[in-house]
């Protein structure tokens, strides 16, 4: 049985980079942090420290990341909003990894998340045997973060029921949790904060109350602004994931990335890149994240069942799955795109066009 972990947390994956940044630290470090805000910025945006090259983690607007970090310095909570696949969770994980060296204090927001998971709950066996005491308390990630003066993450906060969201309000404004059962109160140490993420595209979510919104500084993460950035994002993440997952297939060549990103961008924007042709958009979310998983998918297919190289055939299969989400409308829109746009794109696309057409028939 393999002992290796499928996906390492960011702080372990980039341990050398974090260590190098800490070692080279010159600026003042806020309380509860392990490096200065400027080093956090370098960690996220990339750069060089001594001899260590820091890989960029977030490719996009530097100012937005600056706002995020500055928000956390002022002990305000941070809310990242954006379409699916705009690197909200990714950014939040790396921020906590750099600031605290621990990105694991996470609450995953779901419809089933309860208030106890935000605050604390009890070990009932001990509660019955010994009565309420600190020993029988089961602390939530937020609770531990408050105790340690660290940052807790709340993923998909808008999926939680409103009463659960409300539980956060007092924590964020009072910065303390009271435990009436013990007649005690736990106050947050300096450095405590919360990074929450929320989706704009989700259906069936609970709108956040303005009281809660007011307690956050809100940063909206946009889709990658230009083609080159998006190709960069997809390429670097695919390379990294294929290393992590030990995929046997070779990394696809640049033209494959370009094709997929072009198709995704065009379908997302509802027009061709040159703005000449209008395109019927599909229902699926065609984000950079989706493109990444599509590429990884096709690498997995070709590694396990194919030639070990990502060909048009694998790409076509993966595209079909990503774009046509069990909906006749998507199928029609995809056919329309194939015939009106891709067929006219010239030689580079002809192989992919033929494969896609066959699969979509």
């Amino acid at each position, binding site marked *: 049985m393999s002992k290796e972990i499928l996906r390492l947390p960011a702080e372990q994956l980039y341990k050398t980079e974090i260590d190098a940044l800490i070692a080279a630290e010159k600026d003042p470090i806020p309380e509860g942090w392990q490096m200065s*805000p400027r080093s956090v910025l370098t960690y996220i945006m990339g750069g060089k420290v001594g001899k260590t090259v820091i890989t960029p983690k977030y490719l996009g607007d530097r*100012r937005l990341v*600056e*706002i995020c970090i500055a928000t956390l*310095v*002022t002990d*305000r909570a941070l809310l990242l*909003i954006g379409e699916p696949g705009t690197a909200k969770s990714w950014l939040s994980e790396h921020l906590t990894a750099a600031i605290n060296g621990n990105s694991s204090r996470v609450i995953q927001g779901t419809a089933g998340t309860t208030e106890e998971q935000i605050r604390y709950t009890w070990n009932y066996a001990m509660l019955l045997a010994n009565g309420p005491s600190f020993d029988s308390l089961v602390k939530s990630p937020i609770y531990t973060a408050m105790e340690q003066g660290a940052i807790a993450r709340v993923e998909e906060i808008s999926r939680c029921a409103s009463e659960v969201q409300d539980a956060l309000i007092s924590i964020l404004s009072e910065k303390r949790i009271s435990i009436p059962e013990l007649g005690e109160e736990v106050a947050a140490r300096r450095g405590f904060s919360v990074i929450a993420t929320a989706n704009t595209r989700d259906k069936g979510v609970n709108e956040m109350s303005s009281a809660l919104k*007011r307690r956050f*500084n809100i940063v909206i993460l946009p889709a990658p602004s230009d083609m080159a950035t998006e190709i960069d994002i997809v390429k670097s993440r695919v390379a990294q994931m294929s290393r992590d997952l030990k995929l046997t297939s070779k990394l696809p060549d640049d033209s494959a990335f370009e094709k997929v990103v072009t198709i995704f961008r065009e379908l997302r924007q509802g027009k061709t890149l040159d703005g000449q042709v209008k395109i019927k958009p599909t229902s699926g979310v065609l984000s950079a994240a989706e493109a990444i998983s599509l590429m990884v998918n096709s690498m997995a297919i070709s590694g396990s069942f194919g030639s070990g190289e990502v060909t048009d055939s694998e790409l076509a299969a993966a595209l079909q799955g990503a774009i046509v989400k069990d909906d006749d409308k998507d199928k029609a829109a995809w056919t329309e795109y194939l015939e009106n746009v891709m067929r006219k794109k010239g030689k580079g696309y002809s192989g992919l066009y033929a494969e896609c057409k066959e699969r979509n028939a």
Partner: protein
Amino acid sequence: MAEYFGVRHFSPICSHLVVQFLDRVKPDAVLIEGPSDLSGLIEPLMRDEVRFPVAILAYTETSPVKTVLYPLAQHSPELNAMKWARQHGDIPVEFCDLPGEAALYHALEEQSEKEDSSDENAPKKPSVYDMLEKAAGHDDDVFWEYNFEQVRDLDDYLAAAKEYGRSLREFSPEDKHNELREAYMRRRINEAEKKYGRVAVITGAFHTAGLENVPYSADDEKLTNRLKTVPTKATLMPYSNYRLSARSGYGAGAKAPGYHEIMYKNLCRGVKENTPAEYLSRIAAFQRKNGFAASSAEVIEAVRLADTLAALRGGKNPCLADLRDAAVTCMGHGSFGEVSLACADVEIGTRIGELPEGSVCTSVQDDFMRQLKELKLDRFRTPTAQTLELDLRENIRVKSEKSAFLDLNRSYFLHRLLAAGVLFGEKQRRQQDNATWAEKWELRWVPETEIQIVEASLAGSTVVQAARNTLGLKLTESQSLKEISQLVTSSFECGLQDCVKSASARLTELAAECSSVPDEGAALSELSGIVRFGNIRRIDPEPLVPIIRQLFLRICLQLPTEAKCAPDAAARLTSTLAIVNDACTAHDFLDTERFLNLLTGLSDSDDISMLVSGYACSLLAERGKITAEKLSELISRRLSRGTPPSEAADWFEGFSKRNHRALIIRLSVWEKLCSFIAELDGEEFKSVLISLRRTFGEFSANEKADIAENITEILGVSGTNADEYITAAVTEDEQSAIDSLDGLDDFDFGDI
């Protein structure tokens, strides 16, 4: 002996420090970067009544008109230097840059060069500011604010500005024009030194580096001995913060005049650390005033965030970009859209400059004032809107011709202003459509009006000329018949006979190429209006007559083929027919016979849009040019089984569009309609019903009652037993028929 102070235009700190600088230097004269031939305009700028921003405008006398602007705001360092000189015993202040006439010559040259060089796609060389942005990591506005606005000490500033100017020059490409400018400035400084002694020189930091330590040489003299110039004029003009930020005369530094005002105010009071809080509070105040929530807590959070952002980016105090980011994050919930209006309001501001009367000296201005007095309109020069009613007819109770046509001349004047782009008066729509002798205006004088007048002076030297030239320019640009016919009307309203002529000529040209009947109709309607009521404006409409004839003929020829068209196009054709009909009755020079023949042809034709055919038929009936037998025959044919029911309904719609009364009294029409409807089966009835509903929707309630009376007569139901008939229980057959129509209520009327 000269002392140099390098500024960034509109920089609050420069403005603050330039006073200290002058106090220390105690010069005998002050030289400022600005057109040297316009030094005379400094004096009027210093008057107490002047409200900034104000600009110095120099423009070429002949077309193509080119302009150069030197805007000044309350917080301009140059202005503070002028004020200092005035307060210290009227020390001479002069501009030392190239004269406006030479600057404009260069501007013209540059334009023609640009037109000559065909290679538009040549990659633009990165400017020195682009390079700065690359090196510093933020743009030059942020760079300046972080590094210069925070300076407290004069010596620190002078040293920093010197280094800044020097580095800018090092990385800037060579520029012939700039060399000429600086040679000229050196010459002026040299002259001033000889004349006055100790001179303070206030120029952009970039130039300072090229002036200081570079001695005036023989080369400079040679270069500047014979300057190439064009004839120019210049004036002061009121300016606005909006214009400052939208198109500053200088390259940089005026994107946020409102914000700079806040900075300068706080600098003067010695509380410059208040600026971030003031900026953010003003944003919050704006949000609250406009119905958005913005709490003090959010302002506090925003101030803290801005501080941290500045620290993260390497500034001591937050700059505008930090403050805006903080406002977006804390008050705009992350989206700029939510606070964009507030940002615009606070950063740019709505301030508008003012100049005392008489100090603005364009000839248009003079002309405007003169006419205002002459036409007794002075009392309307107020910011509150006032209404003015005009009666264009000759006033026969007065003696002089001038007062007899006072209102007409007023109307000319106001229309000419409109044409020249001066929105002093707004023409109101009148209730009574056909009272062409009456006009209603709303007049209002705002500072923007003054700016517009100065701008109008670029088009001509009097109001009339400006209007004429603007109309002429529009005329050459417009391509559609409709636009041009509107221009003809405008020229007419302005009382510009020659414009009417040239516009008409253009109209004839275009009309020959036009193939759209509705467009021709629109033009015909405009022109016909002018010819009919034009003499009230005492302008001879005779030149328009041939054009009207031409348009009329074209429409008559095109209509029979055009009428084979879809329903929506048919609707436009019926309005064209109405226009031609009106024109035909109004002008006896039109060939009525031809029009009647056209109508007869249309009404008798079976293969055109039935809507048009019906409409033509009703026009004929209205004019009494169709015999009763022919009409009856047509009605029978249109409403008979042979015609598809929907077409029959269309025909009836067209037929009933005109004179409802004449239709109602013709009992035979209703008989035929009744029998037509009775013969329809269920499905056919449904399709016809929609268009019938539409048709009868245009009838008034009284008319409908009369129609109902007609129908009772036809059905043989007398007034007395009608009640019985209506209140009787619905039979089963009827009920099922009604049920089958239920679906119609769900009918999507958007499709019609």
